[in-house]
């Protein structure tokens, strides 16, 4: 029991040293580019939704004037086999654009 506590203490101490020293590699890490960000609703539709919803895997969802709130709910919760998509994949702002894109009438696409 004592041995375990001592080990944990040593581990904690090692942690403290590491954070005090910062890290060699992360210091070298250059922010040479920023992460990925969606351009608009059409891009998300093409690069995620369409692979199923335009390929007879999932139902057609364009031109049905589906309510934006419904689209947001299905994307976040999934539906049967359709996977849920997290904020980290499609952030709230992008999801709003996607819902807007899907719920628009045909002429507006």
């Amino acid at each position, binding site marked *: 029991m004592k041995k375990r506590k001592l*080990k*944990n203490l040593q*581990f*904690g101490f*090692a*942690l403290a040293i*590491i*954070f005090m020293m910062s*890290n*060699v*590699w*992360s210091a070298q*890490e250059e922010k*040479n*580019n*920023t*992460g*990925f960000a969606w351009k608009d609703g059409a891009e998300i539709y093409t*690069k*995620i939704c369409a*692979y*199923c919803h335009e*390929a*007879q*895997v*999932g139902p057609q969802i364009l031109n049905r004037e589906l309510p934006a709130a419904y689209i947001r709910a299905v994307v*976040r*919760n*999934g*539906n*049967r*086999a*359709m*996977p*849920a*998509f*997290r*904020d*980290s*994949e499609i952030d709230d702002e992008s999801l709003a654009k996607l819902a807007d894109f899907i719920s628009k009438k045909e002429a507006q696409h």
Partner: protein
Amino acid sequence: MTRKYIALPNGVSEKNFDAAISDFRRVLGDASVLTSAEQLAPYIKTMMPVPDADHTPSAALLATTVEQIQGIVAICNQYKVPIWMISTGKNLGYGSAAPAERGQVVLDLKRMNRILEVDKDLAFALVEPGVTYQQLYDYIKEHRLGLWLSMPAPSAIAGPVGNTLDRGVGYTPYGEHFLFACGMEVVLANGEVLRTGMGSMPNSNTWQVFKWGYGPYLDGIFTQSNYGIVTKFGFWLMPEPPAFKPFVIQYQHEEDIVEIVETIRPLRISGVIPNAVVIAHALYEAPVKAKRSDYVSGPGSIPDEAVYRIMKDHKLGIWNVYAALYGTQEQIDVNWKIVTQAFGQSGNAKILTEQEAADDPAFAYRAKLMRGEMTLTEFSLYNWRGGGGSMWFAPVSQARGSETLKQMALTKQILAKYGLDYSGEFIVGMRDMHHIVDVLYDKTDPEQTKAAYQCFDELLTEFSARGYGTYRVNTAFMDKVAETYGPVQRNVHKTLKKALDPNGILAPGKSGIR
């Protein structure tokens, strides 16, 4: 159930969890620490036949930098809070984005999604965990790099880091993904950052070109494991060949699998057929073209007679062998002659190329997978039963015809006992085969869900009793599979765990390791 959190980590009081969450917010900012039911909903949905409550996370953390992750592990060590790491979170049929155990905090690395380098000449990439195949595919196209990806069927929404770390496979000559991994950056439980192989040497420029470095090779222990958090990952890409010839060879009888495997093995080992060939059963391909309800109704597995009608109606073999040749046209011409001679000998094979089958939807998506093009058409499988239930049963087989026949027959027999269909394929490695069976069931039907669980359990029991090991499994069955590999391996895994993560904060339960 507490009011403040939808779940708590095992053994962590609400008071301590409050403190941990507060510290996480300090490191990540409020917006990147998710605790509400609404925010966590997308992390809960799985396709497994167990209650979602068993895999409900207590929180999710959206980290974007190595420094943030170092801060997170320090907090986890302090409060003994376990984290479950995901990259794209699309390990569908293996547990999706949900943690192995209720209450674990998901460390979601999807936003850590920079493509750090793609080298055209040396044909490698270095990426962060959140990069999807679609993102990398677009980058390669945009920069005209002339490189091909190898990816699993959920291509566009999955990514190379998560797939390779779970030792997933694809369908090109680079299909055994971990074989083509080269260099990782790993945040260890104590906050240290390890770069494997040549990456450990300052100023080295060979991190992504030489796998082994010096001393024991470490990359393997960071796959299917919980010994570290991979934050950068290098891997090799295939130069786009001047010519590509996909083809399918159809057979009409289940017993023909013996002939198929005996014919393919020498071609695969010698490299005449260079890619990860797929031998797909009719019921694996049928959902792209047919509805189950058009052929059978009521409970029970689909009868063979109905399968034969599907084959006839939709131009499928009972076995459909998808393979491709890559290289110059001259190379392809020579190898095509060898392939057609080998398969033509018995008179049982029907060989189709793009000329005859380009419009066939099954052939079209298989051809895309074999050339690293994005497609999610394989998800048609989920329409076969409907209801969103799916588990991949994935035993390994020798690439020997008699073995594959035995495995197929045993799988089919056990599935039928529980009223489920055999939707199976064999992915051909050099000397092995990944026997991949989608155990499909209706998760909205409690009886079928219960049957699916029992069926999967029996499949694992019966296969391991015969010495057939499973290469990968969903989070509900990891302990059971770990047990089948015996006590010595489990002890070694545990010893490594204690050495590298004494507080057990990293993904406890992954591959049965705690």
